[in-house]
């Protein structure tokens, strides 16, 4: 399969045989989702960087536990998120996570009018401020599942809870967010 990027299974088996370069490629491939997950948990970019770095080092040492053919993301995220949670726990406080909109985002849809774009931007801003006001637990599950677009399994790994619990927690968090959306829309 020339020209195709090396697949995860091959990278992992090379890394398991001790090939450091293969592991570096794994890090490159997953550092963004790992860092952002740690950021959502810790609320601090510096803590997230340390947690992601420690997590990847631990994952390297635990490579033997990675089953060939398994999905790497939940496996890695579980380890990195565990590091991030340990940091929050040992420092005794969680930084207030403040998610912000990018300056020059373009709302979805084909070439919307400037007016439509402004309305969409305002909607996004309002929704984001409601997400920021949620409880830590609600914000964490919503941010993981929707903002980071993790799968159910990955969200469970990131939160360190069973997948079934993700579903019920997500449902309750969404219901609370929706009622806040309705309240503020009516206000």
């Amino acid at each position, binding site marked *: 399969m020339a020209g195709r990027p090396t697949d995860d299974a091959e990278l992992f088996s090379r890394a398991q045989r001790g090939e450091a370069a293969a*592991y*570096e490629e794994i890090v490159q491939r997953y550092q963004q989702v790992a860092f952002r997950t740690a950021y959502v948990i810790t609320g601090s970019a510096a803590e997230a960087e340390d947690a992601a770095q420690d997590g990847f*080092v631990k994952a390297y*040492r*635990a490579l033997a*536990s990675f089953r060939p053919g398994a999905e790497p993301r939940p496996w890695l995220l579980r380890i990195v998120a565990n590091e991030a949670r*340990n940091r929050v726990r040992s420092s005794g406080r969680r930084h207030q996570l403040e998610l912000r909109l990018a300056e020059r985002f373009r*709302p*979805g849809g084909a070439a919307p009018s400037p007016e439509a774009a402004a309305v969409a931007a305002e909607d996004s801003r309002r929704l984001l401020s409601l997400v920021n006001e949620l409880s830590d637990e609600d914000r964490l599950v919503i941010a993981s599942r929707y903002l*980071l677009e993790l799968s159910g399994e990955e969200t469970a790994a990131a939160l360190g809870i069973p997948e079934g619990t993700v579903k019920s927690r997500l449902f309750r968090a969404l219901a609370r967010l929706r009622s806040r959306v309705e309240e503020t829309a009516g206000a």
Partner: protein
Amino acid sequence: MPELIELEQQLNRLGAQLDWPATPNLASAIRLRIGARPRWWFENRWAMAAAAAILVVAALVAYPPSRAAIADWIDVHTRFKIVPHLSTPTPLPPGPLGRRLGLGQQTTLAQVRSTLKWQVLVPASLGQPDEVYLQPPPDAPSDGEVTLVYASRQGIPAAGETGVGVLITEARGSINSEFFGKMLGPGTTIEPVNIEGGSGYWIAGAPHAFVFVDRAGEVRYETLRLATNTLLVNKGGTVIRIEGNLTKAQALEMAASLA
């Protein structure tokens, strides 16, 4: 619930519009760190070879007839005059056996039994441990982790150069065989075994790490300290691991006598 689905879609769109902090490039820092994996000194073959060489030279030097011959051979006469007496070094420095194994703070059985809310089990077949350590969180689960250290004794040789015969480590949680079944390296075998009042796995070979799920539901990766045959036991909500140069029968006898 259509409103919820719409809200989910809005949230997905919102994710794409966020201003995330820039992802740092972790690869170079990680390259440095995995290149320099900290090892126990006895894991390092060069340190072992050096320790063995020192031992041999010291033993020969301690024996007067060979002293002059060696002095000629390696040409260190002056040094011999400055240090006329060399006691035979031992590969094991004095002090607690478990000190270099990263087991936490040294304590006593009475102390851990009075402070921990869960019952620490001791194998009656081995009796009172020689040393007891308590690892507090975050390096251990929230309920702590206790290690009992037994010195080598007749029938139980020391593991490597540690001087330790048996290590018994206990923490609240459960074994998830699905996880650690994946961790077995070549030359390591795993076998489910029956333990009275619990379940267990006998791992023969040299396992280096294992995984269990603590009471908070978190998966914990732990390094096995001795890299010897290991018996893992799930009993009454506690995960107990018994490490040592043990036969399966010896380990099972210890597990059966846990109380």
